């Protein structure tokens, strides 16, 4: 079991509150990703769960047991650090077995667990080497191995892939997903990379400035962002956001395009770049001058600006014949519009 619950967690450093009352439940076997811009408190929150830091107020529960005052070692969790934090003076085998030796586990069982983890992570040949003699990817595996041998209730991973090059990151990401499937253990994964979050997570927790902005499945976040911050943060390229006024159930976008908007007053209309297409002749559309074209082969990212300077970004399928300086007309997929009220909250 590995059900982790946070109740009203706050944390202050020298009088400055950095975590403002977080309530969260991570179900057993779930892979939950904490994502947010740097400084949003995601790593702090992870350290509070790990027990490396204590909350100022609030409770941490693991499987219903209050562990707020329990030491890091006795919470039954294992952590993979961003810098791997391998002990440089020990061999890989010693690194893996250090935690088990400290619990006075019989030598034979330690050896069995280490060998099993080494086999699983394919680091069998590296067991007698020291961390300095390993490549970044190998160190990453050892760091994960050190967590696995503990057979923890949950894994806590603090930006584990951020020190790897792009190619390795993609393959390690897939391996981590496979590992989670095989072990079925709860994982909490911290990252600032939304692609990692979207591809790995069962559920994503979006954090900003010490507050939980939204908790949902990756597609739930993408399709129904709860507020402007989540809308802007999830999805690449970023969502086009138009601040405008709604009157009589209609809001007007730059260029005169009218869209349905319930209520009245200030609203923000959000359109994902993927939900804009080149308009047919008579179709009502947004008009803009192309500034930059990024041809990626399978798709083309077009950056344009409306007459009033509002940025328009669209992703066109295939290799669209668009050149900078041209004027394009873009029509939105009206079913996929997002509407936010004056406070930035999603309007249904």
């Amino acid at each position: 079991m590995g059900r982790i619950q946070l109740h009203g967690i706050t944390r202050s450093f020298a009088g400055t509150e950095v975590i403002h009352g977080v309530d969260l439940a991570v179900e057993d076997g779930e892979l939950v990703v904490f994502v947010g811009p740097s400084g949003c408190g995601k790593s702090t929150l992870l350290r509070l769960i790990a027990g490396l830091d204590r909350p100022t107020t609030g409770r941490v529960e693991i499987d219903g047991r209050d562990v707020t005052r329990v030491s890091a070692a006795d919470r039954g969790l294992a952590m993979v650090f961003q810098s791997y934090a391998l002990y440089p003076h020990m061999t890989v085998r010693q690194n893996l077995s250090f935690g088990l030796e400290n619990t006075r586990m019989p030598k034979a069982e330690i050896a069995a667990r280490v060998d099993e983890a080494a086999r699983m992570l394919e680091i069998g040949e590296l067991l007698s080497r020291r961390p300095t003699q390993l490549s970044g990817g190998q160190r990453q595996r050892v760091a994960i191995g050190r967590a696995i041998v503990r057979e923890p209730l949950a894994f806590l991973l603090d930006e584990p892939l951020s020190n790897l090059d792009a190619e390795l990151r993609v393959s390690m990401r897939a391996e981590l997903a496979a590992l989670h499937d095989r072990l079925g253990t709860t994982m909490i994964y911290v990252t600032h990379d939304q692609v990692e979050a979207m591809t790995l997570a069962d559920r994503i927790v979006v954090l900003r400035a010490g507050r939980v902005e939204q908790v949902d499945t990756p597609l739930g976040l993408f399709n129904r962002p709860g507020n402007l911050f989540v809308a802007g943060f999830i999805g690449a390229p970023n969502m086009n956001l138009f601040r405008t006024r709604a009157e009589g159930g209609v809001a007007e976008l730059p260029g005169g395009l009218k869209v349905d908007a319930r209520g009245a007053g200030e609203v923000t209309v959000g359109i994902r770049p993927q939900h804009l297409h080149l308009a047919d002749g008579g179709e009502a559309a947004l008009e803009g001058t192309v500034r930059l074209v990024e041809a990626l082969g399978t798709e083309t990212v077009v950056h344009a600006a409306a007459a009033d300077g509002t940025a328009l970004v669209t992703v066109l399928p295939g290799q669209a014949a668009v050149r900078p300086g041209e004027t394009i007309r873009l029509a939105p997929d009206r079913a996929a519009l997002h509407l936010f009220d004056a406070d930035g909250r999603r309007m249904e």
Partner: protein
Amino acid sequence: MNRLTFLLARRGRTGAGRGWHWTDVVTWVWLIGGTVLMFGPALWLVSSSLKGPAQLAEFPPTLLPYVQETAQVEGYDAPLPLYRATAEDGETRVLAEIRRVGTNAQMIDPAAPDERLNVNIADREPLRRLGIAADNYVAPLVANDFLRYLWNSVFVTVMATLITLVTNSMAAFALSKYRFRGRDAVMLLIVATLMVPLSVILVPLYSVVNATGLLGSLWGVILPTVATPTGVFLLRQYMLTIPDELLEAARMDHASEWQIYWRIVLPLAAPALAVLAIFSVVWRWNDFLWPLIVLSRRETYTLQVGLNTYAGELNVQWHYILAMTVVTMIPVVLVFVFLQRFITTGIAGAGIK
């Protein structure tokens, strides 16, 4: 061969290793000069320690140690020193000296011991060969208890260094890795004691050692020296560079605080510990004033205090002092030879990034 070419490499006129560029000349002069300056006194000490007392007093001094040739002459119990005497007619003979009276020496020919000759000391020269005065070493070590002093010095140095390393690293660990109220104040206080020289605290320290009954024992020399501000500062600065994540990883790995200190921090601080060990060995080995004050019986003397006994008010036994100085130098040199490489190797941080 390659090493030789490397050693003899010169910049040369064209940079290809031909001819002497002025920088080559300066480099060689500078390096040779430096070598002579550094090694000269030490070599001079070693060579002088092998000379007898008479040769030490000689002027001009000789570079190498010599011993006087002697001959066993019939009718005399002790071997007689041999001299090369020049007679008035310019003929030189090898003669043995019986005794000296004023500026004249009574000499005999070892081959014809019956005939006594009077020779002016200006007309003769000692007959000598290259050799060493081993007695300089043997006498103090065997007869004068210097082995005992040596053992005392080794004991003081080893114990003081071990205790210094353990206590200072504990203090440094706490001061670098734990957050507690007054931590910086404590650190400041420790570093501030660097400004207080031994001579200032000599009297109170004496009172303390006296009150604790350690006066006259080697522990009285060891214990007051083990808490060094330099050591705490040096180790703390080094431990600050050990990433906290390593300690947190160990904490997650069920390590107790003692295990974190003993199994993670100490091994990673090895380069700094080696530096402090070298310092501590040299300090304790060379300590003179404090042991001189604490130790009053000959059996407890350390080498440095023991050396002092050869410098009397009226008579300084240079040959013994020089020989025993060489003996005292050996361990310090060995420490440098074997621990030096530790200074340059840093192993912490290697597992990070």
